[in-house]
């Protein structure tokens, strides 16, 4: 009984934790691969939060957040793939898999 009540809350908490972890890494890490992973971790956090939200209802599991998560995962996969290829292109062009500290002004 207690487990049933608590478990959605744990999903919610873990979701928040993943989101913030990812956010922190995205800001702090400089290697592009780590940044891309960080975005993915943020995404996982939100998805977990959504699943936790879906499990709270009294009228059974809410299917809409599940559908949202599936859509969200696909979107995240697409963006990740583009980001990875772009990272490789940046590495090929600049020799570094990280962004220069300030923008090139000219």
């Amino acid at each position, binding site marked *: 009984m207690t487990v049933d009540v608590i478990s959605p809350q744990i999903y919610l908490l873990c979701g928040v934790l993943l989101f913030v972890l990812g956010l922190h890494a995205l800001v702090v890490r400089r290697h592009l691969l780590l940044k891309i992973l960080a975005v993915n971790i943020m995404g996982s956090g*939100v998805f977990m939060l*959504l699943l936790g939200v879906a499990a709270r209802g009294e009228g059974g599991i809410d299917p809409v957040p599940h559908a949202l998560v599936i*859509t969200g995962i696909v979107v995240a996969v697409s963006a990740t793939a583009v980001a990875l290829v*772009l990272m490789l292109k940046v590495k090929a062009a600049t020799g570094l898999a990280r962004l220069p500290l300030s923008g090139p002004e*000219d």
Partner: protein
Amino acid sequence: MPWMDVMADMALAPWLVILPLAGALLAGLWPAAARWWGLLTGLLTLPMALLLALQVHAHGPMVLYLGGWVPPLGIALVADGLASLMLLMTAGVGLAISLYALGYLTGETGGRWFWILWLWLWAAMNALYLSGDVFNLYVTLELVVLASVALVALAGGAAPLVAAMRYLLVSLLGSMAYLMGVALLYGSYGVLDLQGLGAQVALSAAPMLAAALMTVGLMAKSALFPLHVWLPPAHGSAPAPVSAALSALVVKVSFYLMLRLWLTVFPALPLPGLDMLMGALAMGAVLWGGLMALRASRLKQVVAYSTVAQVGYLFLLFPFLRAFPDGWKAVVFFAVAHGVAKAAVFLAAGTLQRAAGHDRLADLGAVMRGRLKTSFALGIAGASLVGLPFTGGFIAKWLLVQTALEAGLWIWVLMVLGGGLLAGAYVFRLLGPAFQPGPADPGQPLPAVMEWVPLALALLTIGLGFAGTPVLSLLTRTLTGGGG
């Protein structure tokens, strides 16, 4: 008019998604004919957008339930005054960009990718403007980001690639923040449609946090100072049609979404400090963008920094919204006027760059004298950026000053007027080379369309100078939130 009654029953809104998307798919399948699919799309979409705007103006907002499923279960397409105005601007500028690209991209294999990605971008922007659902908006937003990142990277070379990467990461960060906001909203109210959320959102912690996350996320996407770093290299080094599309249209997308959220979902929320924060950043953008535009030595760099500056005005939205319920209309008119003028300036810059073979400002005099139509386009559209009379920019500036004065917000009056002075300084600097002594030389031979399209857009900015009343009246047909 009888045909107007017939039109009233027709569902036009879906076609504004179907047409460009079909164009994009066909262009992807037959890349060799991509340019013609692009042209066809532009020619069909503009009248459709015009009809939709007339329809909305005559009959009020149109809401279409997709698949017949009424929200909150289904997703609605909402074509109201705001959406149809943005669609119309996109269609007008989009057609101009397409026509221009026909001349600009001849014989380049890279041109094919431009057409495919550009049509995708167009479809994505239209889908976003019409969407009435916070999660669906997230998906459309990602479509816009992917298409525009690919367009930025299209130029190749280190600077555009780094800019594209930076843009993508900032956008993804923004998307995640937005998505977190969606999750919080759904967790609080169990619905996703804008109207349904707007009816329920009341002052409490979860929607406040959601609003903050979504707003900050979208702010990051729209290159507001100090998150603008990727913009000048991206917009400055891309091919001219891409620069025009990015600066004139894509920048407005996240602005639109922010406005939509605050009009429909969050009107009941006061966010203390947000207006001042946004206003301060806007001020920073106007000053920094203006000063950098004054310093830049290349034509397209100047124009790109001008975009950084003008994005600042868009964020006057927050102080205005807080002070004055109708204040957003001035900002929307500004967005439209800027869209048309900036597209004209970027396309004219592209023509001059092609003709001269470079875009070093100091050495452009001969080509500017040799290509009068383009120089005039640059001058007229530049006047609109400054806010000189008989252009849309003047009406926009008037409305901004009027709104700020009406709300008693002196500091923004000063900012708008001062920003106009900075714009004046860099626009006249752009035009300066034309007046240096020397011969007139049209430079490389170019297709006529590359001269006529910027001029047509510049004349459109003059048209906007007389369109204040109809545009504002269209904007009164905008759905706003009930405020629970």
